[in-house]
């Protein structure tokens, strides 16, 4: 029952992201989706992924979003879409229909249960089986830092302009 409520809230908040005009509300909705996702991860004993989701997605990304919203002009913060807002619930209903169709197909295509072959604890998988991922992650974080630094760098031309 709790899972139904949490997942329903996630879907409602994602619809809210489409409807809300104020980008601050949208950013807060996204943060709430992350918090609920972290709770769902905790429910299924994925504690470490839950902690990452809570601290990084609900915390860091929200701060970045709010900083970006405050750095950009007010005139840009209006919902510009090719369809009016009242069209969104209709589209979501169509999505639910497609979703139902996909789930029906999945239910028939996938065997009801598999023989569990657990790879071990998170620590064993992360540090032993998928150790190459750590290098990739370090590379990604480095790329992110350099990307941000290059984007916020003030060029000589801009300095002269100031």
């Amino acid at each position, binding site marked *: 029952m709790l899972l139904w409520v949490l*997942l329903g809230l*996630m*879907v409602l908040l*994602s619809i809210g*992201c*489409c409807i809300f005009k104020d*980008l601050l509300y*949208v950013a807060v909705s*996204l943060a709430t*989706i992350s918090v609920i*996702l972290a709770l*769902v991860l905790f429910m*299924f004993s*994925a504690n470490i*992924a839950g902690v*990452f*989701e809570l601290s*990084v*997605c609900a915390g*860091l*990304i929200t701060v*970045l979003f709010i900083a*970006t919203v405050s*750095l*950009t002009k007010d*005139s*840009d*913060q*209006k*919902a*510009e*879409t*090719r*369809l009016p807002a009242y069209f969104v619930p209709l*589209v979501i209903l169509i*999505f*639910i229909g497609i*979703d139902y169709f996909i*789930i029906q197909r*999945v*239910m028939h295509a996938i065997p009801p*249960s598999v023989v*569990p072959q*657990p790879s*071990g604890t*998170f620590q*064993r*998988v*992360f540090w032993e089986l*998928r150790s190459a*991922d750590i290098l*990739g992650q370090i590379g*990604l*974080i480095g*790329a*992110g830092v350099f*990307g*941000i630094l290059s*984007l*916020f760098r003030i060029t000589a031309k801009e300095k002269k302009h100031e």
Partner: protein
Amino acid sequence: MNKEILLLLSCGILLVMTGVYMLVLYRNLLRLIIGVEIVAKGVTLIFLAAGVYRQDIGFIQALLVTFIIVETVLAAIMLGLVVRAQKIYGSLDIRNLSKLKG
């Protein structure tokens, strides 16, 4: 199949579709990034459903941690690009980014 797995899967697919809807129909760059983030949340739920189905949460957690880092770096770089685009073009409307045309 377990009801919980189906629920996670259906909610994940719904979130992915909502995110794609935002990506296709909105013109504000910040909303497009939020669409990408919503797609990422849906993919996380689908990953979790796969982990619960295979009864291998340890493996899925390792993948999810990597995925969360990818998602964060992507969001950070895209937000940096948005600030830069706003500085150069004075607007966040993707229709105004005409200099990107080849």
